[in-house]
C-alpha cells in the first residue's frame, strides 16, 4: 500500500465517532458570523444593523483576488456588526444575527434529488465557486476558486482528493464519504472539468475500509476517478505528503502543488462544490465532529457556520466535569480554545474535548539529542536545530535551514521523549523569519 516516505508518526487513532451518522443540529438562537473566514484579505460587510437576512444571502463580500464571500447561514435579523472574540481570544469583526424561522434564498435548490448532469462550463464553475464562498475545508481555508485558476505556463495533470483524515479523533470526512459519496463524486467531476484534467485520485487511509469499499463501488459510474487506499501514517493529509503518497512526486521547497501538476482538494470541498454548482447553495454549513474520551455522546453534526461551540458541546451531551482543554480541530494540529462562545467557522473540522489529566503537557527536560524529531519530520528538517535557532533569535540561519518548509504538523513535538515544545519555537521562528523575508522583499 502506498504512503509518503519521509518521517511520520503513528498517534493513537481514537476515532470514537466513526460509526455515528451525521445529525443535523437544530438551528441555534443566534449566530456570530466572522467576516474573515478564509486565508487572504478580510471581506467587507454588505448588510447593516437591523436588516433582515435570508439563509444563503450574501453578508460580506470578498474584495481582493484571494478572499471569499460570506453568506448568512440562517434567516433572521442582523443585531449588530461588532467584534467577536475568536478561538484564540483576539477580536474579529463578525455579523451578529438573531435567528428567526428558516427562510432560504429562492435560488437555492433544497430538494434531496441528486443532480448528476454537469451543465456549467469552466468559467461559470469558477465564478460560481467564488461567488458562493467555497473555501478549502481541510483546515487551511484557502479560497477554492484561486486553486482552480491554473497560472499561465503550468498545467494540471491530476486532481487529488484528500479523504485521508489522518488527524486522530476526527471523523467528519469519513462520514461525509460514506453518506454523501455520490454528491462528492459529482463535485469531483465538476472540479475535474474546471481544471481540465482527466484523472482524479481519492486518497483514503486504510483505517476507513468501509469508505474505500463504498467509494470504489460508486466510482464505477464515474469516469477517471480512482480510490487510492493509503497506509495509515500521520501527516498523510498534508498536501505535499498526499501528493508524494499518491503520485510519488515531491513539491519543491517553497512551491505550490501545481508545480508538479497536481491540485489537491478536500472531500468536504468537493461536496461544497457540488452543492454550489448543482444546487446554488453557498457554503453555510459543514460537518463538525464533536468528540473526546470524556464526551457522553461523540457525534458528527451538520452545523450552520456561526453557531457557538458551546451549542455543539451541549448537543453532544454537555461539557464533561473534568474538562481541561477544548480544541478546535484535531489533537495534532488543532487550536486550543480560550472561550467556548467562539463560533464555528468554515475551517472548523471538529471540536475535541480533552480531560484535565490528558491536557497537561509532560515536563520539559534537557534535549538528549536522540534525533527522533528529525526521524519524524515529514519535511526532512531538523526540528531540534530550528527550535534552538529560533529560541536564540537566529532567524537568518533558521531560514537557511529551511524553517519555512515546516508544515506545523506537530510530529516533532509529539515524538520528543524530553517533551520539549519544539513546534512552539518552530512556529515562533516561522513567524519571525516570514517577517524577515517580507521586509527584505519590500526593500
Amino acid at each position: 500500500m502506498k504512503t509518503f516516505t519521509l518521517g511520520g508518526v503513528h498517534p493513537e487513532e481514537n476515532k470514537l465517532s466513526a460509526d455515528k451518522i451525521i445529525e443535523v443540529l437544530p438551528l441555534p438562537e443566534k449566530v456570530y458570523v466572522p467576516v474573515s473566514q478564509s486565508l487572504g484579505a478580510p471581506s467587507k460587510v454588505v448588510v447593516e444593523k437591523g436588516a433582515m437576512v435570508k439563509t444563503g444571502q450574501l453578508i460580506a463580500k470578498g474584495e481582493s483576488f484571494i478572499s471569499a464571500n460570506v453568506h448568512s447561514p440562517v434567516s433572521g435579523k442582523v443585531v449588530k456588526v461588532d467584534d467577536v472574540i475568536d478561538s484564540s481570544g483576539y477580536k474579529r469583526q463578525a455579523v451578529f444575527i438573531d435567528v428567526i424561522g428558516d427562510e432560504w434564498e429562492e435560488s437555492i435548490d433544497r430538494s434531496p434529488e441528486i443532480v448528476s448532469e454537469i451543465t456549467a462550463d469552466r468559467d461559470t464553475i469558477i465564478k460560481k465557486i467564488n461567488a458562493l464562498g467555497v473555501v478549502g475545508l481541510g483546515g487551511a481555508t484557502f479560497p477554492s476558486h484561486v486553486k482552480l485558476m491554473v497560472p499561465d505556463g503550468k498545467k494540471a495533470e491530476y486532481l487529488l482528493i484528500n479523504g485521508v483524515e489522518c488527524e486522530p479523533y476526527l471523523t467528519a470526512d469519513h462520514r461525509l464519504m460514506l453518506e454523501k459519496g455520490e454528491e462528492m463524486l459529482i463535485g469531483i467531476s465538476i472540479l475535474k472539468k474546471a481544471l481540465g484534467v482527466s484523472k482524479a485520485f481519492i486518497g483514503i487511509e486504510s483505517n476507513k475500509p468501509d469508505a474505500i469499499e463504498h467509494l470504489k463501488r460508486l466510482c464505477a459510474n464515474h469516469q477517471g476517478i480512482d480510490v487510492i487506499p493509503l497506509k495509515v501514517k500521520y501527516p498523510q493529509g498534508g498536501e505535499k505528503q498526499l501528493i508524494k503518497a499518491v503520485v510519488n512526486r515531491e513539491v519543491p521547497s517553497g512551491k505550490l502543488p501545481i508545480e508538479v501538476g497536481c491540485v489537491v482538494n478536500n472531500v468536504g470541498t468537493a461536496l461544497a462544490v457540488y452543492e454550489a454548482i448543482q444546487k446554488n447553495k453557498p457554503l453555510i454549513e459543514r460537518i463538525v465532529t464533536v468528540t473526546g474520551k470524556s464526551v457522553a455522546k461523540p457525534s458528527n453534526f451538520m452545523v450552520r457556520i456561526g453557531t457557538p461551540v458551546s451549542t455543539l458541546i451541549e448537543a453532544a451531551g454537555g461539557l464533561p466535569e473534568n474538562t481541561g482543554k477544548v480544541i478546535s480541530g484535531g489533537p495534532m494540529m488543532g487550536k486550543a480554545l480560550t472561550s467556548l462562545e467562539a463560533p464555528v467557522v468554515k475551517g472548523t473540522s471538529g471540536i475535541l474535548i480533552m480531560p484535565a489529566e490528558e491536557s497537561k503537557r509532560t515536563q520539559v527536560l534537557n534535549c538528549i539529542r536522540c534525533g527522533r524529531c528529525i526521524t519524524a519530520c515529514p519535511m526532512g528538517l531538523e526540528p531540534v536545530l530550528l527550535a534552538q535557532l529560533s529560541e536564540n533569535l537566529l532567524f537568518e540561519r533558521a531560514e537557511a535551514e529551511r524553517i519555512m518548509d515546516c508544515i506545523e504538523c506537530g510530529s516533532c513535538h509529539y515524538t520528543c521523549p524530553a517533551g520539549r515544545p519544539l513546534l512552539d519555537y518552530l512556529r515562533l521562528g516561522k513567524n519571525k523569519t516570514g517577517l524577515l523575508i517580507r521586509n527584505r522583499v519590500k526593500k
Partner: protein
Amino acid sequence: MSLLTISGSPHVHTQQSVKSIMYGVVIAMIPAIFVSVYFFGIDAARVLLISVLGCLFFEWIIQKYLIKGPVTINDGSALVTGVLLAFNVPSNLPMWIILLGALVSIGIGKMSFGGLGKNPFNPALVGRVFLLISFPVQMTSWPMPKALFGEGITDAITGPTTLGILKEGLDAGKTVQEIMASPTFPGYVNDLMGAQAGSLGEISALALLLGALFMLIRKIITWHIPAAYIGSAVVFSGILWMVDPTQFIDPLMHLLAGGMILGVFFMATDMVSSPMTARGQIVFGVGAGLLTIVIRVWGAYPEGVSFAILIMNAFTPLINNMFKPKRFGEVVKNG
C-alpha cells in the same frame, strides 16, 4: 470546572519518554548482567552494585550541592552509566577505583558539561578510559571465568583476554592459526557464550545481542549505527584477513572477542553523544568501525572500541553539521 488550558498543537504526546528509554536500556542489559554474575560470581555483582550506587550518589550530590538545581537521578541515565561503567571493568577491581571511575564518569564526563544531554562524550567511556590510563595494571588483570558448563570459581587466577592472547602471540612472532590452536585459547563458542576473560559485560556476545534485539524492537535504538559499525569493521578486517590470514585476525573473531558487541549496541548508540540524522549515524558507525580495527591491529592496546567511540564522539557535532537529513522536495522526481 478548572481553567481551560491553552497551548500550541500538538495536544497529544507519545508514550516514550527519557525515562522509558533509559530504563529500556537497563532492561536490555539484564541478560549480560546475568552472564557476568554466572561467570565471575559474586564479584561481578559487587562491581555492578558499587558502580551503580557510586554513579547515582555522585549525580545526586553534584546536582543537589554543587549545581543546586533539580535532582534527576531517577531519570535512569545515571543508572545506565553505572551499569555500563561496571560492564567495562574487570570484576576484581578494588572498590576505590570503581568509585573513582564513577566520579569521573558522572562528574567530568557528564555534569561538568551541564548534565544529561549536554555531554559530548559517552560518560561511561570517559570513566573507563580514565581508569585504563591511570591504573593500567588493575584494569588489565582479568580474572578467569569458570568453564562454560563447569563448576567452581577460579578466584585468584588472572589471565589475558582473547584479544590480549592474540596480540601477545602476534607480537611474539606466532601466526594467528598457531595461537588459536593452543588449548588455553577460548575459541568462537566460548566467546559467543561468555566463557572468556575480560570486562564484566563484554564477555558474552549472545547475551548482548539479546539485549540489542530488545532495544531494536522497542525502537530505543535504530539500526543505522550498529549496522554501519559492524559492517565497516567486518569489511576492513576482512580485507586485512584476506591479505594475510596468518597475521590478521578473521572478522568473526573481531566481532566476538573484546568489547565490540557491547560498544556497538550499547555505547556507540548513546543518543547524546552520537549524531542525530540517519546519514550522520552511518558515517559515525563507519568511522568507529574503521578506527576500532586500526587501533586493535596497529595500536598499543589490544582493545580499541572505547577509543574509537570516544574519537567519533568528538566528531559528532561536525557530522551533525555536515550530514543533513534528506529534505523533502530536494530532488524533484517526476513519474
